[in-house]
C-alpha cells in the first residue's frame, strides 16, 4: 500500500495513546522500564508525525498547491499535537520526570483523534485562499501554537497539582513532582507560553496590517486571543507581585486553557469573523 500522510498521521493517534498508557502504567506500577518504553513510543510517534507533516507538504506541491501544511483545521490540529509533543519531550529531557507524560501525551492523542476521525474535519489538502498567501502564515501559526501547546502542558501540570493536594510520602501521588517543583514548573511553562502567545499576537498583527490594512480589528479570534492573554497575565502578575502560589495558579492554568480552547475552536464554530477560513469545511 502507498504510504500517505493521512495514514501516517492517523497512526500517530494510537502511538501517542499507547505512550500515554505506558506512562500511566509506569506511574501506577512504578516500573521505570515501562516509562522508558513510553518515551520510546513518544519519540517514534513524533518522528512518524514529523514525516507525515513533511510528506503532506510534499503532497501539496505534487497537487500543484505548494504550501506549508498549516492552513486548515486538520493541519492545525496535527501541528498542535506535534508541537505539544515537542514541548513535552523537551521537558522530559530537562527534568528527567515521566509522570508529566501521563498528563501531556493525551492532549496530543486527543487532537490527532479529533483531526483524523471526526467526519466534519476534512483531511483533504486544500489550496490556499488569497488571504493566507503570505510568508507570515508560518511565523504566525508556529508562534501561536508554541503558546497553545505550552498552555496545554501547563494545564496538565495544573491538574497534577490539584490532584496532589499535599505532598505524600508514599503512594501513587508521591511519584508526582513535589508541590513546590510543580508550582515552579507550571509557572515557568505558563510564562513560556505567554511569551509565545504574545509573539503570535504580534505576528498576527503585522500580517493583518499587510493583508487587511489594520493591525487590530477586534475580530472575535483576535479578541479571544487577547482574553487568553489577559487570563495568563493575571496568573503571572498575581504570582509575582501578590505571591499567589499553587492552587490558585493551578486553577488559573485551567481557566486559561479553556480560554485557549475557545480561541482555537469556539471562535471558529460559534462566532463568525475574519478567521473563518479556519472552519472545519
Amino acid at each position, binding site marked *: 500500500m502507498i504510504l500517505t500522510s493521512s495514514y501516517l498521521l492517523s497512526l500517530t493517534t494510537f502511538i501517542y495513546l499507547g505512550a500515554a498508557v505506558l506512562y500511566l502504567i509506569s506511574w501506577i506500577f512504578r516500573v521505570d522500564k515501562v516509562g522508558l518504553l513510553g518515551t520510546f513510543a513518544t519519540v517514534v510517534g513524533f518522528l512518524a508525525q514529523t514525516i507525515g507533516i513533511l510528506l503532506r507538504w510534499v503532497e501539496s506541491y505534487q497537487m500543484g498547491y505548494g504550501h506549508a501544511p498549516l492552513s486548515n483545521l486538520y493541519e492545525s490540529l496535527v501541528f498542535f499535537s506535534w508541537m505539544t509533543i515537542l514541548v513535552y519531550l523537551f521537558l522530559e529531557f530537562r527534568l528527567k520526570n515521566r509522570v508529566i507524560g501521563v498528563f501531556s501525551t493525551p492532549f496530543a492523542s486527543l487532537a490527532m483523534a479529533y483531526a483524523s476521525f471526526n467526519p466534519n474535519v476534512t483531511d483533504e489538502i*486544500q*489550496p490556499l*485562499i*488569497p488571504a493566507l498567501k503570505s510568508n507570515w502564515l508560518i511565523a504566525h501559526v508556529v508562534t501561536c501554537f508554541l503558546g497553545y501547546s505550552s498552555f496545554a502542558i501547563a494545564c496538565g501540570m495544573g491538574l497534577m497539582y490539584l490532584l496532589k493536594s499535599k505532598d505524600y510520602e508514599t503512594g501513587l501521588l508521591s511519584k508526582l513532582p513535589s508541590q513546590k517543583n510543580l508550582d515552579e514548573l507550571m509557572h515557568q511553562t505558563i510564562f*513560556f507560553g505567554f511569551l509565545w502567545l504574545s509573539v503570535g499576537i504580534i505576528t498576527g498583527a503585522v500580517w493583518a496590517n499587510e493583508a487587511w490594512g489594520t493591525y487590530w480589528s*477586534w475580530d472575535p479570534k483576535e479578541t479571544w486571543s487577547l482574553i487568553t492573554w489577559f487570563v495568563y497575565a493575571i496568573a503571572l*502578575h498575581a504570582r509575582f*507581585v501578590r505571591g499567589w502560589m499553587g492552587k490558585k495558579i493551578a486553577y488559573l492554568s485551567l481557566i486559561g486553557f479553556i480560554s485557549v480552547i475557545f480561541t482555537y475552536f469556539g471562535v471558529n464554530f460559534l462566532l463568525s469573523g475574519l478567521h473563518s477560513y479556519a472552519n472545519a469545511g
Partner: protein
Amino acid sequence: MHIQWNGMLINLPGPFLMAISNSSQSVSGTPPKPFWHILTSVRLAITLFILLAATSIIGTLIPQGESLHLYLEKYGPTMFQVIKVAHLYDMYNSWWFIALLLLFAINLVACTINRFPIISQLYKKDTGLQPVDRLLKMPKSAAFTLSSADSLSEKDLTRLLPAPFRSFDVENGRLFFHESGKWSYWGVYILHISILVILVGALIGSIWGFKGQIMIAEGEKVAEAVERFTGKNFPLGFEVYCEKFFVDFYDTGAPKEFRSDLVIFENDKEVLRKPIRVNEPLSYKGLTFYQSSYEAMPIITFTITSADGKKKVLKLPISEKVNWQEAGLNLGVMQFLPNIHGGQAAHVWIGDDGLPPEAIWFLKGAEKEFRRGNNIYRASITEVTQRYMTGLQVKKDPGVWVVWLGCAGMLLGFGVVFWVAHRRIWLWVGERNGQPTLILAGRTNKNNMQFERFFTEVEHKIRAATGAKI
C-alpha cells in the same frame, strides 16, 4: 529574601520585594496617599485585566458595527435599549471601554513611575560587599584550603574571575566580586513601557489616521475615497487608475487570486504602476491601498438593425445611457438577470426625443422587434461580457510604526526577562580558622542550570591554579 519569578529563584534584598509588592510604602517613609496607592497597585492591574477580558467577550457575542435597526430586529426592544445605551453595537470604541483602556494605561504609568526610583536606588546601593559567613550560605559555594596565603598573587586571583570586578578588604582577607546581567531587572520595565508605546501608537492612528474604501471600475480613475465611519469623501491628493482586475479560481471553486493592476497618476502624469493582491498592498504618499473586494458588472452587447438596413452594435453597461445618434435612440440596461429560463436576460430601456420611453425584456440570442413612431427595429443581445470593479481599502496610519516599535520593545523585554540572568560571583582569600583559605560563592536569579555549569568552570580553574583541595 527569596521570591519565585519565572520558576527561577530571584534573590532580592528585602526592601526590593517590599518596593515591588507594596508600592506606596516608599523608602523615604512618606505616608501612603490612598488615591495614588490604588492607582499604583497591582490589585488594580489585576482587576483591570479581569474587567477587560470579561467585557471583551460581549463584543465577540454581539455582532459589531451593524446598522442599528438590525439589532432591534434580532434582540427585541428591551435588549436593543441596553445595546444602544451601552454602545454595545460598537463596543470597542465605546466611551466606557476606552475609559477602561485609559485607566489601564494610567495604572501602568503610575506603577512604572512609582517603582522606578525605588528599584533604581536599591540597584545602586547593592555593591556586592558581603561578610564571609554569608558567602558560605550562598546557593553555590566552595571553600578551598591553600598551602600558604601567598601562593596566589592578586593578579593570579583576578585572572580566575571574569572581568570586570570590584574588590574590598573583608575580615583579614580580600574579597573580589563580579556580576553580570544586573540590568536585566529593567526587562520588566522595557516590557511595560512597550505596552504603553503600543497604546500611544494606536492613539496616534485613531487621531491622525484614516480608513476608507474606494471602488474603481476597470479603465477608470478615482481621486477620492469614502471614509468608512462617516461616509464622507476624502480627497486622495492623486488619482488611482485601475487598468485591469483579475479573479482566478482553483478547480475546487475556491478563490486563488484577486489582483488589481493599479496606476497612480499625479497631475495627469503616471508616477507608479503596481499590481496589488491580498497580502500585497500598494503604498503612495502615506496612503496604502489593499485589495479587499470586487464586483462583476455585465456589459451587454446589443445589436440593432433598423428597417432601412442600418445596423449598430452597442455596448451597454448597467444603468448607463448609451446614445445611437444616427437613429436618435437612447438605450440603457435597467436590470440584468444572469440566469432566467436557462439564459441571460436584460431589461432594456429605450427612449428618443419625441415619444414616451419604454422598457423591453430581451433574452440573449432571441431577436425581438420594436417600433418607435414610424420606425421598426429588430434587436437582440448578441453577447454578454463582464467588466470588473475592484474594491480597495485605503488606509493612512501614522501610528503604525510606533506600534511596531512597541511590539519590538515587548519582544526585547520578554527576551531579557526570560533569558538574561543576574549572576553574582564572589572570591574571598584570607585567613580563616588559622588557615589560608579561598572561598568561592555565587548566586543567580534565574537559569540555575546554566549558572551551575559556569560556576563549576570557575571552580576547575581555581583547582588548576592552586592545586588546592576542597
